[in-house]
């Protein structure tokens, strides 16, 4: 097989291997309900991973996405539930704030790592003010959406395919998507061609804010209540998901479908370790080892490609 094709297939292959191992260990997961349970948390995580991917596309990094997902879930569980108009306004405000951050980072040429690091405190703080203790209630419509039981195909699979598809068409097929990726590849060339870098950055940050807000709502719909801190691990998981999915930190080389697959792989790796009855003490370490193995395989494939 062509190494380039093999490389593009790596994320899907890793997911297939882990899925196969789970099916082998627990045959009863090969069912409507099994898949539902296995994959439902992949929906919010893949949305957060897409948010991170939008930022990575323009060569930036978002260290605040976990706190932000927690805040939007908190808004959903309090304002959106009690006073829907205020809740929607707050969520729109969050997305606008994300776009404004993109503008600030572009305008002052600030390092995104530091600005988002600062913002992670702001989002977490706001979430804590909103929800000092875990609680709140998910709006009924959100709960029934996320626990929907369509016929034949489990909801998480439909949701993941739809989300990946929309992001893929928007970023990889649309003309403006090519411009956005071009900003990560060669910002100056994009600017010389007459495109506004400011507009591109604001677009990508606002899209990240939107995907992050959807991640918060999806997480809330699944868990029924919110906690200011329950999405904090998403920050690092989302970065790992983008890279597992074949994305790179610089150059605008990203893949939305890969990112969704990467997020699902990370989540299933956790389930696999549970099914393997690994002592809990070693679980987190084994997760690190899986990450290393998958990425090392990618290097092997790349080397095979270079040798030809």
């Amino acid at each position, binding site marked *: 097989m062509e190494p380039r094709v093999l490389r593009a297939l790596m994320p899907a292959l890793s997911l297939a291997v882990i899925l196969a191992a789970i099916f082998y260990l627990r045959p009863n997961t090969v069912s409507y309900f099994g898949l539902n349970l296995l994959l439902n948390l992949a929906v919010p995580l893949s949305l957060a991973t897409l948010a991170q991917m939008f930022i990575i596309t323009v060569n930036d990094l978002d260290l605040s996405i976990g706190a932000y997902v927690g805040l939007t879930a908190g808004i959903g569980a309090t304002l959106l539930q009690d006073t829907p108009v205020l809740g929607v306004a707050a969520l729109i405000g969050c997305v606008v704030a994300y776009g404004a951050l993109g503008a600030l980072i572009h305008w002052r040429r600030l390092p995104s790592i530091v600005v988002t690091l600062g*913002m992670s405190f702001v989002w977490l703080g706001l979430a804590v003010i909103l929800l000092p203790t875990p609680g709140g209630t998910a709006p009924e419509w959100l709960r029934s959406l996320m626990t929907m039981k369509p016929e034949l195909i489990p909801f998480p699979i439909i949701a993941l395919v739809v989300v990946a598809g929309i992001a893929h068409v928007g970023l990889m097929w649309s003309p403006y998507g090519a411009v956005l990726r071009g900003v990560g590849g060669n910002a100056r060339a994009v600017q010389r061609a007459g495109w506004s870098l400011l507009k591109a950055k604001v677009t990508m940050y606002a899209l990240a804010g939107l995907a992050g807000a959807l991640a918060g709502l999806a997480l809330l719909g699944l868990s029924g209540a919110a906690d200011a801190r329950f999405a904090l691990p998403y920050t690092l998981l989302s970065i790992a998901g983008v890279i597992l999915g074949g994305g790179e930190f610089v150059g605008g080389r990203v893949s939305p479908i890969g990112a969704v697959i990467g997020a699902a792989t990370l989540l299933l790796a956790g389930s696999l370790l549970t099914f393997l009855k690994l002592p809990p003490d070693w679980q987190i370490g084994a997760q690190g080892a899986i990450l290393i193995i998958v990425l090392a395989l990618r290097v092997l494939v790349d080397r095979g490609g270079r040798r030809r």
Partner: protein
Amino acid sequence: MNGATSLAQRMLAKPWIWAYIAAAMVWLASVVITGGSAAPGLLTAALTFGSFFTLVAIGQMFVITLGPGNVDLSIPGTMVLAATVAIKTMDGDAAMIPVGLALALLVGIAVGFFNFALIRLLRIPPIIATLSSSFIILSVAIVWNRGLRIKPPEILGDFPSADVLGFPIIALLVIGLAVIMHVMLTRTIYGRSVTAIGQNPRAARLSGVNVERVRLTAYVACALFASLAGFLLASFSGGAALNMGDPYLLTSIAVVVIGGTSVAGGFGNVPGLWGAALFLFLLAAMLNTLGFGEGVRQVLTGVIVIVVIVVASFRRAPD
């Protein structure tokens, strides 16, 4: 008069000055708020806790200066593992302190080599490599620790809080270390090589810099400082806890960047680390004193960090 203005101008052009100005402003504000009563105690605490921040940040600064994408996310894990191994080995026995310290530092060196092996041999981006290794390191620490709570030897527990004429010993040591590392960064071939690699790795390689050896040394040094910080922190706080390193992940990056080091690499800065460490501690202390709830404190911390970065960006030389 003219000389004074130009001196002031030259000072303001230094990338690290903003961290000190911010720290001084926050300290003054705290003194005013408390009516002067907390001034000396606050400085002692800032110097003590600032020492831990600075110690960890020196290593992170060298890694970040290596260039885009270089960052060590395994610092908290390294701190916990080094502290766990040392505290358990010493088992409260003062005679075992040298052994415990040596083991802690060995843990740091091993982690540094492991991190760089992932980066160099497996070509994993440093962010993901150090993230994955931190998971493994943390697991080892969990297994080693087994929830045991052993106290550090008494003499060691007293050490970080000991002082000379009211000046914490640990701060003196870390200031000394910062001076050495400043000279190292700005005056030695090694330091210049780190900077050169951060600016242009290809040019550095072509001019004869052993790029991989310099990068390896930076990652090992970073893990080494983290392990020393873990050892001292565990001694200071009465034992090793699994979450003791958590605040140091983001703080180490924040201290480096607020201190005037370029996140894009190629421009390191040691003096600013102390300023930024003092600033972040004093800021947290002031917000505590004001009696804000946790949420408001977090929001203000974030906003002030961003404001400092934005203000500093206006002072940057136009390019």
